[in-house]
């Protein structure tokens, strides 16, 4: 427990934690407010069916209860990428700064140290996701006012009732992505290499998804997105556009496999690694 609490203290004082959170919140607020302004001004509306779909999609960002979904989706997708980078930064720095070495030389369990570090990351991600979601919803309300859209759906109790479970699934999915970054950086023993390879993996999978969707749906990022793809509000126009993806519950199992697998690899590598430098 003292190692876990120490991990929380270290992470909460680290600039990377606040930069990651700031990026997530900053971007979602910026986009939602911009969407509100765009809807209000009719920017990009144009004519024809495509324009109608586009303006409808934009409206969903600031129209409740659909906005509950859109914000959750935004937190999942952008938060997942940031979590990947964050996990890589934390694990890589333990090797790069030599702090893992110091703990091991004090008799600490390598596996215990790494897993406890990840547990601290998981706890902070949970807090960060909830805060980011709340801020995103506030931004959506503001955006709705800017757009001149009614916020009458804000109190949709059926939707609100599903949010806690949906948030847990999003957290679990984001955690899987953080675990991948954590493991990649552990294998690379480097923050930069971990972040670089993590980004390449993330976008590589997205690109491969265009060519091999049936295969890529089993890959970690696609599975994470599918696992958290719970429409807490009524289905909307954009839901129908979703490409090949596993059913949410099946994807959730796959996410658990990727998460446990990634941490297992990181643990085995840490346990067997020769620590130098």
């Amino acid at each position, binding site marked *: 427990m003292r190692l876990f609490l120490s991990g929380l203290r270290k992470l909460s004082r680290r600039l990377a934690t606040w930069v990651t959170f700031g990026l997530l919140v900053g971007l979602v607020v910026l986009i939602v407010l911009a969407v509100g302004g765009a809807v209000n001004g009719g920017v990009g509306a144009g004519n024809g069916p495509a324009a109608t779909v586009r303006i409808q999609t934009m409206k969903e960002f600031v129209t409740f209860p659909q906005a509950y979904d859109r914000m959750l989706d935004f937190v999942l997708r952008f938060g997942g990428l940031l979590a990947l980078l964050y996990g890589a930064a934390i694990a890589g720095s333990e090797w790069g*700064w030599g702090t893992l070495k110091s703990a091991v030389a004090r008799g600490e369990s390598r596996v215990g140290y790494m897993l406890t570090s990840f547990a601290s990351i998981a706890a902070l991600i949970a807090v960060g996701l909830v805060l980011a979601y709340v801020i995103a919803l506030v931004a959506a309300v503001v955006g709705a006012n800017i757009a001149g859209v009614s916020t009458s759906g804000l109190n949709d109790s059926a939707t609100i009732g599903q949010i806690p479970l949906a948030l847990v699934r999003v957290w679990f999915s984001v955690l899987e992505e953080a675990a991948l970054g954590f493991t990649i950086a552990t294998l690379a023993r480097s923050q930069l290499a971990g972040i670089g390879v993590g980004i390449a993996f993330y976008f590589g999978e997205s690109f491969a998804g265009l060519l091999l969707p049936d295969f890529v749906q089993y890959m970690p990022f696609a599975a994470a997105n599918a696992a958290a793809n719970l429409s807490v509000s009524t289905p909307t126009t954009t839901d129908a556009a979703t490409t090949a993806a596993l059913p949410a519950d099946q994807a959730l199992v796959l996410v658990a496999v990727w998460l446990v697998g990634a941490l297992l690899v990181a643990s085995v590598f840490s346990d067997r690694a020769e620590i130098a430098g």
Partner: protein
Amino acid sequence: MSGADGLALATRGLRKSYGPRRALDGLDLSVPTGVVYGFLGPNGAGKTTTMRVLTGLIHPDGGTVEILGRPFRRGDRRRLFEVGALVESPSFYPYLSGRANLRELGASGAKVPAGRIEELLGVVGLSDRAGDKVEDYSLGMRQRLGIAAALLSDPQLLLLDEPANGLDPAGMVAIRDTLRALAAQGKTVFVSSHLLAEVQVMADVVGIIAAGKLVREGQLKDLLAMEALVKVRVQPDQVTAAIAALTALAPAEPLAESDREAGWLAVHLPAERAAEVSKTLAAVGIYVLGMESGTDLEMLFLELTGGSSAADDEGKFVGLGTNGSPSGKGTVA
């Protein structure tokens, strides 16, 4: 706590290879309890590899390690709860203060007694800067913090790799006094260093390794007594003739030449025979320009390790081969 044989640390037949290169080749160390042990060796001799093995950072290919009288094998990590270590460069979170770093490090391994962190910050002279971020620390300050970190759990055995790195003279004296005081309390201090003069004034026992093997180990005063030297300086162009004359004086012992350009030679003779050296050289028409007698850990180190040493790095010694030509070796027969 120590073994039945009074050893705080013992290795037997320790082996470790990195690919085809043997870093440790059957290393046998015997570190008595309650001493400052100077662990010496040239660059690449295996000192750091030994430190890594002793702290569980790497695993040996063969051989055994005993720490405080009990075997230390893979999985025996808790044995390190009684060990404090500073291995290579000190490692900290740069964005945390010195005090916070010690606190977070103390969350791993053995528990840290209450008040210990402030006490140690005082011992290493960092109380005034304990609240500053480590990224703003100088090399010497990081080194001091590293020593404080090694002492965090009040260990019975202290393993320090180049603890004087980056320290100013006052800091070196303070650390030396601290380590001596720890040994006086019955704790064992194992110090790897290339600062031979520092080890000479600090250590009770020394072990010298070369090519992954122990080449000499014992009480420092005994080793130095065996290696008593008379150093004599002659005109540089008379060095060859002086070697011939002095080799006849002490034929059983190797004669070392140090600093050929300055004309310094060293003869293995006790100090009381210094006059004989002067007389022997005068008899062949060589007049002594300077003379010193006594013992020298540096010379012992060079002889045992073949001269490719840390001392070479400092430019103090240039050795000759058996034919008297520059060879990088520290002794002539």
